[in-house]
């Protein structure tokens, strides 16, 4: 199972990469495998303020639409136009070019409270 150790995780299968107060958010390898072929990604508006747990983006497979939740509170500062153009990036490169949005995090401690790779691995096993 592909669970990079440098990332933090949510029980609802989002990952976060923290760089200063910027958090990049995507969905995990496990999540994309469960969703299967991603055919559409609905991105949030840049500038939108979100709280932890807010439905923020939507990832759709042929069969279903799944909400992607903000793992921590903050403001949307960037979205990934590449996944809008080619949603299959979420399947083929979930931790890289398949990222979905970036947040300016309100409180970086919130990220440290998220699961680490070991805890997420246990969560999905």
């Amino acid at each position, binding site marked *: 199972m592909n669970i990079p150790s440098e990332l933090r995780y949510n029980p609802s299968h989002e990952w976060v990469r923290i760089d200063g107060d910027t958090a990049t958010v995507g969905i995990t390898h496990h999540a994309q495998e469960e969703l299967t*072929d991603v055919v*559409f990604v*609905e991105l949030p508006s840049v500038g939108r303020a979100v709280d932890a747990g807010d439905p923020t983006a939507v990832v*759709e497979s*042929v*069969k279903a*639409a799944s909400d992607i939740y903000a793992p921590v509170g903050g403001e949307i500062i960037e979205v990934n136009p590449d996944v809008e153009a080619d949603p299959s990036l979420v399947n083929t490169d979930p931790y890289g070019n398949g990222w979905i949005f970036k947040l300016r995090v309100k409180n970086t401690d919130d990220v440290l409270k998220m699961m680490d790779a070991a805890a997420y691995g246990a969560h999905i096993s």
Partner: protein
Amino acid sequence: MPSDLKSSPLESAHVSLGARLVPFAGWNMPVQYTSILDEHHAVRKHCGIFDISHMGQFIVRGPDAAKWLNSMLTNNIDALAPTQGQYTLMLNERGGVIDDLIAYRTGPEDFLLVVNASMIDEDLAWMQSHLPSGVTLENQSDAWAGMAIQGPESPAVFAKAYPGETLPQRNGIATLADGSIVCRTGYTGEDGFEFFSTAATGVAVWEKFLASGASPAGLGARDTLRLEMAYPLNGNDLSPDRTPIEAGLGFFVNLEKGDFIGREILAQQKEQGPALKLTAIQYTEKGAPPRAHYPVLTEGGTVIGELASGALSPSLMTGIGMAYLPASHTKLGTPLKIDVRGRTTPAKVVKKPFYKPTK
């Protein structure tokens, strides 16, 4: 696994292929093996095999069987010679659809009906309540394993799996030397056949078709394939409150053959034109995949219906769907909008089918 779900006789084969099994019409059925998109394309380009063991099989026999079926179903059963089949519908007294099915004539006084899994009990109860003396109705649904082998390469797959046997003509039915039943029908728009073997031999037959070049395809691909052809799915596109005339299935309704349940309202609708029509709608711009129950709006923003079915078409890579709309909004090219979670995507009325198989 919840114990109230029925298991297909092919379930062990699905599990060993790593299929994702989901509840469907009371059955635990494979929705996909690896990828709905790949399975969809495999059927359009090569050959796929679906488990359809959940579908029901009824045997109707007797000197008055044809006459009775003609009073219960919309199509003209007298048009069938032995070995021929037809798509037909069973209606309630209001002309609404109870079920859509294929009726095959297997002998002068013998018929096989293949019905939807979700409707087996209801169909049986309805038919039994109208059964005259001199006609027998037998439910053989649990006796058969069913498979649909579909795609341009399916005749070659059949030839390899059953050398020396011949596929019947389009819509035809044949019994093979080993007692299996093969029907030249399907739900994908591609050439192909449906195959029924005894439940006990099902896994061996399934594996024989795989070895002969068919790749497994799940209910997810089955749904996108049928929707590209604008084939209705009972429960989505057909309901007890909608008639076959409203559903655009007038071709399968014979008003001249004599009386049948629901005929009067159908004759009226055909004469006056139905107020609602099941309409094919296709996106004209990129948008989130349309799905059942999403609102359909006029260009001006008035809600005029909701999608009965909707999906991203894997062949066309755009959103497609069907909705019952007021006849005034069903002219080809009429601009519409589909509301997905509060955002609208422009769409228009298009001709059925959405996709034409290349042959």
